[in-house]
């Protein structure tokens, strides 16, 4: 390496260092090593070295796992259409926001980590997307989330004593106070500071507070029934007038029943009706199966590509293969660091980009061959080859990136796709191209300069006259 320029040498060692770090990041948590060879029986489990350190404002922690999208990890995705017809135009956005919050609360009841609720808009149509990774009881989730339960508050009316025996709830609580779910801001479980017992708190919005004040005045010392879809869930006594819209229901609650009631009250407070228009459920085994198959296919394909390169370009092919492996490693590391959520199509995008990564290398090599055929010296040919190939590499990859961007739809233009699957593919494609240009040009060039300075006459003989 004596006659290499300092710059080349620096770049080389940077690449080596980088690969080292990348390998560590990509190692599985535990690496069991078992060597049973004739008389040697050696077993040891290596643990991935800890990479927890701070570098100025940056924090490096060890948990760099691959994130899998819904279709690989398993789970459900629900799409609801929101009915905004009964709401005046200027309050639509606040109504949809409170709808989103309400649904989030319902979703949280299931305790699913990484559950996701999103609003989306398509001209005049509003949509709600709920993602529940890892859920197994889909139908239960759907019925809770999708239920547009109507929450009403009805006051107790007098009934003649003869009719009491046969009176139904509807008869007794026949006076509608006008308060319904849209007036409720939130219901929360509180612990009474004096008694230490759990209570269910209610908080109404402005209009609701006024209605509630009137209702508590009217039904003072009587009861107000809280109905969810005509089913009473609680029938508290009105002890005092409540003018400020904040009330508590106390009684013989224990914590779980207080929570349940609060959840039910919250559930009923859907400000806008929603309708399920699409549901997708992927069982957990299907996803794992897909990953396994994808990995296998990727490895086999990679192997074939490596063979092909060596067959066609000899020793240079080997350098290209190393460059390709570095490409794969870099991309995987980036997936972990950014992080990129891998979907089915994303994995395919990655496999495809591996095939394309070799592209830049091939362009350079073919140019190299040509220059040698024209009689230039090796080193000269190498440098010229890089320069000439770069133009083609630049333009061609730019075109693919343009297409990738349109697929990715970064500005969420409503006339373009925003489905997760297409986006997952676009992300891996764009990332793949950017990294492949880098490894194809910088890494290959550097490796060639370091390892291939001698005249390799093997390659100088043109294979395709």
């Amino acid at each position, binding site marked *: 390496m004596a006659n290499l320029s300092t710059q080349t040498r620096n770049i080389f060692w940077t690449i080596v260092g980088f690969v080292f770090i990348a390998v560590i990041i990509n190692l599985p948590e535990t690496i069991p090593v078992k060597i049973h060879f004739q008389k040697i029986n050696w077993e040891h489990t290596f643990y991935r070295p800890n990479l927890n350190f701070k570098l100025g404002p940056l924090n490096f922690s060890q948990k760099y796992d691959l994130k899998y999208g819904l279709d690989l990890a398993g789970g459900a995705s629900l799409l609801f259409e929101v009915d905004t017809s009964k709401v005046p135009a200027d309050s639509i956005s606040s109504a949809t926001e409170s709808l989103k919050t309400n649904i989030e609360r319902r979703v949280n009841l299931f305790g699913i980590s990484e559950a996701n609720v999103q609003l989306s808009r*398509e001209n005049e149509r509003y949509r709600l997307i709920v993602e529940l990774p890892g859920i197994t009881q*889909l*139908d239960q989730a759907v*019925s809770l989330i999708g239920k547009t339960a109507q929450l009403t508050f009805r006051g107790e009316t007098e009934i003649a004593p003869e009719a009491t025996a046969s009176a139904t709830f509807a008869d007794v609580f026949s006076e509608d106070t006008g308060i319904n779910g849209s007036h409720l801001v939130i219901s929360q479980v509180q612990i009474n500071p004096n008694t230490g017992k759990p209570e269910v708190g209610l908080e109404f919005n402005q209009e609701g507070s006024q209605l509630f004040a009137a209702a508590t005045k009217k039904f003072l010392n009587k009861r107000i029934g809280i109905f969810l879809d005509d089913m009473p869930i609680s029938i508290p006594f009105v002890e005092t007038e409540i003018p400020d819209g904040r009330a508590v229901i106390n009684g013989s609650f224990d914590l779980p029943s207080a929570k349940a009631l609060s959840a039910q009250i919250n559930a009923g407070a859907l400000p806008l009706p929603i309708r*399920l*228009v*699409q*549901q*997708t*459920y*992927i*069982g957990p085994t*299907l996803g794992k199966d*897909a990953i396994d*198959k*994808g990995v296998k*296919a*990727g490895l086999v*394909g*990679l192997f*074939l*590509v490596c063979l*092909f*390169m060596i067959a*066609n370009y000899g020793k240079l092919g080997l350098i290209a293969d190393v460059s390709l492996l570095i490409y794969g490693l870099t991309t995987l590391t980036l997936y972990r660091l950014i992080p990129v959520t891998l979907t*089915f*199509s994303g994995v*395919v995008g990655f*496999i*495809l980009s*591996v*095939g*394309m990564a*070799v*592209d830049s290398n*091939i*362009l350079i090599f*073919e140019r190299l061959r040509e220059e040698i055929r024209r009689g230039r010296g090796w080193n000269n040919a190498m440098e010229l080859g890089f320069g*000439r190939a770069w*133009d*083609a590499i630049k*333009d*061609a*990859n*730019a*075109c*693919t990136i*343009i*297409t*990738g961007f*349109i*697929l990715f739809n970064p500005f969420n233009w409503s*006339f*373009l*796709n925003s*489905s997760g*699957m*297409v986006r997952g*593919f676009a992300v891996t*494609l764009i990332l793949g191209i950017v990294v492949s240009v880098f490894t194809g040009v910088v890494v290959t060039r550097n490796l060639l300069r370091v390892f291939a300075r001698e005249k390799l006459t093997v390659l100088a003989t043109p294979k395709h006259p």
Partner: protein
Amino acid sequence: MFWKFKPSVDFSGGSVWELNLPSQPDRPKIDQVFTSQNIKLSSFSQNQTVYLLKFENITSDQKVSLQQQLQKLDPDLKEQRFETLGPLLGRELLKKTIYAIVLASLFLLVFIGTRFHDFTFGLSAILAMLHDALILVGSFSILGRFFNAEVDSLFVTALLTTLSASVHDTVVTFDRIRELKRQLSKLNWVELANAAITETIVRSLNNSMTIIFMLTSLVVLGGATTRWFAVALLIGVICGTYSSFAVAIPLVLFWKRKK
């Protein structure tokens, strides 16, 4: 001859249900369950214990009753996958796809035209690209008829990838023409084109071989769900390669000769 597409649930709306039924109940029993719920089963396929059922778009209540009935047939029923989609959404997907293609074509036209200082290049590249798209779409029409290949949102992705791969390859060939023109401006267009093709064809083929290796491996070894996606990409890539010299270049020459 136009065989119609086989649009999947993604476009026409409907439901797809993949179930694992270890006791392998036979088809008439499954049919009975569906008819009892008044749901039309539009497609049925069975691979040992794995059943793939397709039917119209249903509500979640209907699904629950279906599942209850099926569970009576086989208590060890396991749900692998369930998707249901209203028809409106399907049409949306189609619309969005067409927009994407149009937008991509416009951008690429401008980009290539500017980079090569010649809009005939841009136009020819786009036409070659659309030609590839047409072949892909047409071949899936045929495949749909004979092999039940489906057109779903992944296919759309494959379509768009084909477009970009085709352009990619075409651009590399054009780049060679551009360079040769700089060096040997005395040659007329036909000779230039010939020279360019001769020089780049090797590289083009080599390039595609690597992608074809990866994709073939995916078609063979990858799961059934990605199979048609990989096939679509494969067709697209092969088209993209040969279209660069068999379609784009002749088109350029065609325009040039008219001058």
